[in-house]
């Protein structure tokens, strides 16, 4: 075990930190620390421009292989990038779905033609993606997809019909990847296809979902014979589940350390407030703040273990499997702690009619953390069944 980064990695750290200090100024100063979870609806145009600024500096898609326009950065360097980015207050990445999901999927499963057509726009920060997975009846049971894909021989196009939901930033995206049923007689994870669609077409309607925060980051997306070309399916009809699941494994947690920097900023805000209003003298609050500190440290060490790879058993890393349940629960508790530190002031909004303060937004938005991306209940099933080899849930 070795905690220290190599001199080369520390040099890389300085390079990105210096670049951010030079570029996250002027027109971009206003979006520092903005656009993160709970704030993703803010400043979309400025954040798209920022993606192009990043791309010009060679700071998009750094983990991609050089052959596809990336830097082929090591895991350590990707970690460092995310840490420094968050430390500098880099805005929420408009390009993250394309960079972390679409790109690696096409690199792993796509055709040469798909890579040539889609990767440069992601790399350049000019084309933005959203993810069409969940449906009204395919939430935790993601394989229960009803959206249909039919190949129209006359036009030589795929026609997609159905509804997706919880699609982040669909209204700001140029493309969407969609899993849809190619075999109408199939059920579950068989008979699905993975499609690449342009969002700008008459067959697609985006409707924002108003959240309990009063804001809208998520959307419903309706497909009424939306189309894509014969070459816009990744893999073969029937491979959709394999591609979709492969995609979930790509990120490997390199961005988790950046996420933790955002959490640290929130905890620092709470500590500052507790010192200011005297809550820091309350022994119960002291215990809870210290507990939050312990949890955040553990998240970091846990990520370090995951990123270092667990040579004990390559594919199934227990510390990686607990991560979602751990951070989401921690973050939800942090929201409650924030309100308790604020006391009666916690009720008062930042501005009428319903503009929430940052900590109010944390309190409310963190209720989503334990639901999206696999609810805490689904996470516990996954841990019990895959890590502890306990019997699987019966399926209907």
């Amino acid at each position, binding site marked *: 075990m070795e*905690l220290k980064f190599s001199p080369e990695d520390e040099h890389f750290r300085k390079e990105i930190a210096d670049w951010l200090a030079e570029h996250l100024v002027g027109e971009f100063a206003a979006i520092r620390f903005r656009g993160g979870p709970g704030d993703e609806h803010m400043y979309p145009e400025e954040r798209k421009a920022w993606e192009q600024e990043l791309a010009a500096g060679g700071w998009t898609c750094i983990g991609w292989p050089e052959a596809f326009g990336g830097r082929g950065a090591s895991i350590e360097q990707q970690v460092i990038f995310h840490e420094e980015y968050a430390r500098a207050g880099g805005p929420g990445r408009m390009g993250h779905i394309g960079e972390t999901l679409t790109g690696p999927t096409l690199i792993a499963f796509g055709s040469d033609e798909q890579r040539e057509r889609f990767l440069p726009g992601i790399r350049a920060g000019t084309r933005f993606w959203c993810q069409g997975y969940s449906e009204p009846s395919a939430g935790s049971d993601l394989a229960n997809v009803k959206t249909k894909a039919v190949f129209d021989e006359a036009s030589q196009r795929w026609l997609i019909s159905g509804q997706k939901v919880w699609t982040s930033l669909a209204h700001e995206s140029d493309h969407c990847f969609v899993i849809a049923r190619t075999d109408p007689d199939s059920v579950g994870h068989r008979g699905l296809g993975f499609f690449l669609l342009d969002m700008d077409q008459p067959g697609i309607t985006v409707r924002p979902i108003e959240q309990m925060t009063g804001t809208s980051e998520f959307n419903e997306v309706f497909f009424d014979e939306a189309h894509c070309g014969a070459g816009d399916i990744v893999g073969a009809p029937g491979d959709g589940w394999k591609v979709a699941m492969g995609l979930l494994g790509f990120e490997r947690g390199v961005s988790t350390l950046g996420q933790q920097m955002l959490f640290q900023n929130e905890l620092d805000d709470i500590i500052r407030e507790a010192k200011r209003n005297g809550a820091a003298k309350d022994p119960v609050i002291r*215990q809870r703040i210290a507990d939050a*500190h312990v949890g955040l440290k553990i998240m970091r060490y*846990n990520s370090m273990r995951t990123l*270092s790879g667990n040579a004990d058993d390559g594919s199934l890393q227990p510390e990686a499997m607990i991560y979602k349940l751990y951070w989401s629960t921690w973050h939800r508790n942090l929201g409650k702690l924030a309100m308790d530190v604020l006391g009666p002031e916690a009720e008062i909004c930042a501005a009428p009619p319903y503009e929430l303060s940052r900590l109010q937004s944390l309190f409310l938005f963190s209720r989503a953390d334990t639901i999206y991306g696999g609810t805490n209940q689904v996470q516990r099933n996954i841990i*019990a069944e895959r890590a502890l080899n306990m019997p699987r849930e019966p399926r209907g």
Partner: protein
Amino acid sequence: MNFSFTDEQRMIRDTAEAFLSGASPSEAVRSAMETESGFDATVWKQVCEELYWQAIHIPEQYGGLGLGYVELAATMEQMGRFLFCAPFFSSVCLATNALLVAGDDEQKARLLARLIAGETATLAHHAPAAVRWKAEGDQFRLNGTARYVVDGHTADWVIVAAAASGDDGNVSLFVVPGGQPGLVRHWLPTMDQTRKQAELVFENVLVDTGQRLAAGAAAALASVEDLATIALAAEQVGGAQQSLDSTIAYTRERVQFGRTVASFQAVKHKAADMMVKVEAARSASYYAACIAQEFLAGSASTGELAEAASVAKAACSEAYLFNAGCGIQLHGGVGFTWEYDIQLFFKRAKSSETLLGNASLHRERLAALLLD
């Protein structure tokens, strides 16, 4: 940055696991815990002569193996899994660390050699102000009572933290042979029978100048306690893991309503929570072990050591007690019997939580760093 075991560290862990599965099965634990000494002297001799664990992190210049704290923690984790009853924690994690941190070169050379030779020792550190020292010519006179001394009744010698008469903050560490005139040692029967404690009464005990490890030793003692805390946290991880593993094994065999208990979602979710606890605790424990290693090598500060120790002890104490407690619950009625081992882990979890400060104490230490 590489936060995973090296091949050598993995080998050391596997060796410990293999040895302890043979040397510390349930029957061995139960027979050791029923004795007053609390350990099997022939097994300890075997450990010292064949495995050399007593010398694991003693630098080679003093005749030790010169391995790191990560290796020590990996070994402790396995001891925790098997509830190994031995004077390892007292001799290695307490006394050896006290010598390494507070001893001068001559004392290290002399006393570490005796530990390497298989002598046992401990540290009486719980309340320095309860034992008082006074200089008398070229000797020191000790009076007072030290309680909660791990293996205090069996250790060949004791390092005692004592405060100067009338000056609570002026702490010194003294090495006192177990048979020193004026020292009376009582075994204190404990709820957790797998870790023995004693009360040591010092009545006009005289020690020579060379037996004082360090004067003005309050800060050094704090670092020694932090090092021991980090080792104990690793042991807690092992206990938490075994509490989970034995519970899963039981629920996979136990059948009710025509299906294994392990197939009920309520049971699976509790087991998942147990795994989250132990993996989180393990991450904190490994990190703290790395910091302890850096501290002993001179590249981490006392502040970093203290913070890492508190993060680890808070997390590991809670994880172990949670897992052992859930373990009893998921075992159902048999979990409450003397016959099943989960009760032994539950008791060890509680005694380990209290030893060197419980989770609340360590959180308050962190709160003071963050808020004051």
